[in-house]
């Protein structure tokens, strides 16, 4: 049999269901691949070999008893380290949570287990999901399998790199401002941000609660849809979970894969299709638009005049919510405690703990958020950002009266070399320029590979209306059928 680590999740599931391989064999092949390459890639912060093999053996036993199992039973999955996994270390790539083992599973982890998927381990990320390169991980960056000297995107760079390095066929990410889609784009993989409220936040370590959205990462659109279907759906433990049925994303991906987009209207975001992006990114994007037209899609240019204010609004709203959410890390209930010599007060110990436990980007955002929420600045910063959020939402709703989905590049530039954007934080923020509007609106969006620029992957982004996640999967699968998937160089 050929190498299972090169197969899609759908293919792996098919082989296991047909009895041509076992879940244990599949898990072993991926764990061996991690052993062989992860010292160079560093996609994982923790590999749970024992847990993975036990879960795989359980799937094989259930199949042996003739139990009906789900469509991804026995398929390995890598999980971003910001998601609580019972008894398995969960750090959000921060020193302040080093060694913490959650006493419970996130809802989506429960669903992954119930579906018979096999969790391989926890993936690297920017600390508390704040960053676009994994350079802000307290445990060292992840290297992009396309070029080990370049960033894998962020914050979910570990999840994306684990796919591009064939260490896992599926991975889970979280997207607050682009943390699933931008890593997907720069690693040549697929990353989908579901509708906010379409996937449960219960068990996510909170960064910006009005924006955080967990979602699927994969090497093909169909695989992403299969994973989406497993984790999505209403959860009573998340107060912003939407009590509606999950759109048929798998059916939509399969429909799109037939390569017929007749009757589908695409809105090309005028403000994101020209200046600000690298020429190679624009060229690959434009070629893909032509490919979609050949499949029967109609393309019109749509102006979204407030999108240019999305980045500033986001960098006020997200840090504001983060400054509040991260107050829980106080050295009392979990994680690090520093400077407790029996003489210092609680407040002193708390301040020392937080200074030692948090990295520079987290501190910057806590201070920025505290500032934006202070009396005297609230109206000018946080209050104004919330009004801009309304205007961005109006841009989306008026666009969706004219077109089915919006399209744009995923990120303005291909994977950049390490260290090139860390000295000026705002230069790092620009990586999220095209992904952020969707988060502020709350709708779904997907990044799918659309070609290369200077030998590095370019991502194509499709944004859909709230709870119309199926639409983006259809267009993404059609594009994939036209341009194909990308294969990175051998490691």
């Amino acid at each position, binding site marked *: 049999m050929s190498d299972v680590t090169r197969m899609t999740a759908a293919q792996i599931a098919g082989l296991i269901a047909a009895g041509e391989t076992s879940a244990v064999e599949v898990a072993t092949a991926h764990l061996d691949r991690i052993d062989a390459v992860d010292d160079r890639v560093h996609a994982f912060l923790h590999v749970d070999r024992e847990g993975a093999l036990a879960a795989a053996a359980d799937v094989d036993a259930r199949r042996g008893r003739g139990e009906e199992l789900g469509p991804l039973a026995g398929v390995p999955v890598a999980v971003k380290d910001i998601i609580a996994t019972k008894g398995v270390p969960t750090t959000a790539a921060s020193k302040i949570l080093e060694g913490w083992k959650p006493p419970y599973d996130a809802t989506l982890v429960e669903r992954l287990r119930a579906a018979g998927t096999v969790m391989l381990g926890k993936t690297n990320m920017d600390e508390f999901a704040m960053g676009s390169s994994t350079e802000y991980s307290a445990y060292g960056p992840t290297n992009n399998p396309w070029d080990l000297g370049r960033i894998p995107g962020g914050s979910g760079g570990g999840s994306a790199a684990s796919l591009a390095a064939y260490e896992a066929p599926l991975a889970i990410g979280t997207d607050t401002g682009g943390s699933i889609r931008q890593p997907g784009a720069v690693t040549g993989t697929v990353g989908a941000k579901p509708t906010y409220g379409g996937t449960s936040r219960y068990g996510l370590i909170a960064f910006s609660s009005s924006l955080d959205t967990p979602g699927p990462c994969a090497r093909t659109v169909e695989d992403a849809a299969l994973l989406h279907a497993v984790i999505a759906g209403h959860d009573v433990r998340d107060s912003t979970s939407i009590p509606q049925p999950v759109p048929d994303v798998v059916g939509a991906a399969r429909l799109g894969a037939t390569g017929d987009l007749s009757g589908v209207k695409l809105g090309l975001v005028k403000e994101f299709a020209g200046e600000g992006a690298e020429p190679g990114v624009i060229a690959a994007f434009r070629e893909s638009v032509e490919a979609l037209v050949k499949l029967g899609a109609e393309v019109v240019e749509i102006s979204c005049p407030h999108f240019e204010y999305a980045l*500033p609004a986001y960098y006020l709203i997200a840090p504001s919510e983060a400054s509040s959410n991260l107050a829980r890390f106080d050295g*009392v209930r*979990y994680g*690090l405690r520093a400077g*407790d010599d*029996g003489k210092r007060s609680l407040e002193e110990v708390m301040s*020392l703990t937080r200074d030692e436990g948090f990295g520079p980007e987290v501190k910057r955002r806590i201070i920025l958020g505290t500032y934006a929420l202070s009396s005297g600045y609230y109206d000018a910063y946080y*209050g104004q950002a919330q009004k*801009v959020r309304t205007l961005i939402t109006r841009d989306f709703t008026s666009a969706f009266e004219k077109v089915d989905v919006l399209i744009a590049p995923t990120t303005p530039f291909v994977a950049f070399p390490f260290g090139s954007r860390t000295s000026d934080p*705002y230069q790092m923020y620009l990586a999220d320029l095209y992904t952020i509007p969707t988060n502020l609106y709350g709708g779904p969006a997907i990044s799918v590979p659309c070609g290369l620029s200077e030998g590095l992957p370019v991502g194509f982004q499709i944004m859909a209306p709230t709870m119309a996640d199926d639409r983006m999967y259809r267009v993404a699968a059609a594009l994939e059928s036209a341009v194909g998937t990308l294969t990175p160089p051998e490691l």
Partner: protein
Amino acid sequence: MAAISREEVAHLARLSRLAVTEEELDRFAGQLDVILQSVARIGDVAADDIPPTSHSVPLTNVYRDDVVQPCLTQDAALAGAPDTAEGRFRVPRILDEEA
């Protein structure tokens, strides 16, 4: 003119319970100034009559039935704590001894 001074950053760090070093203060003050100057242009959008959006999902709170459900045991809840005593979280002193 700088949007934010070194003194303001020091004050905000104290409010945020971050015992930042002098070197961190120097660095953060410059970086936060650049960030604030870049995001300040949201003030250019005329939005006086626009309602704010705090959240994209128009849901109101719901209540579950008031029935006992399984929850963490005391041991599980304390398992990740840096210090415990008598089945509780142990914290450094909160009040001055004179108080």
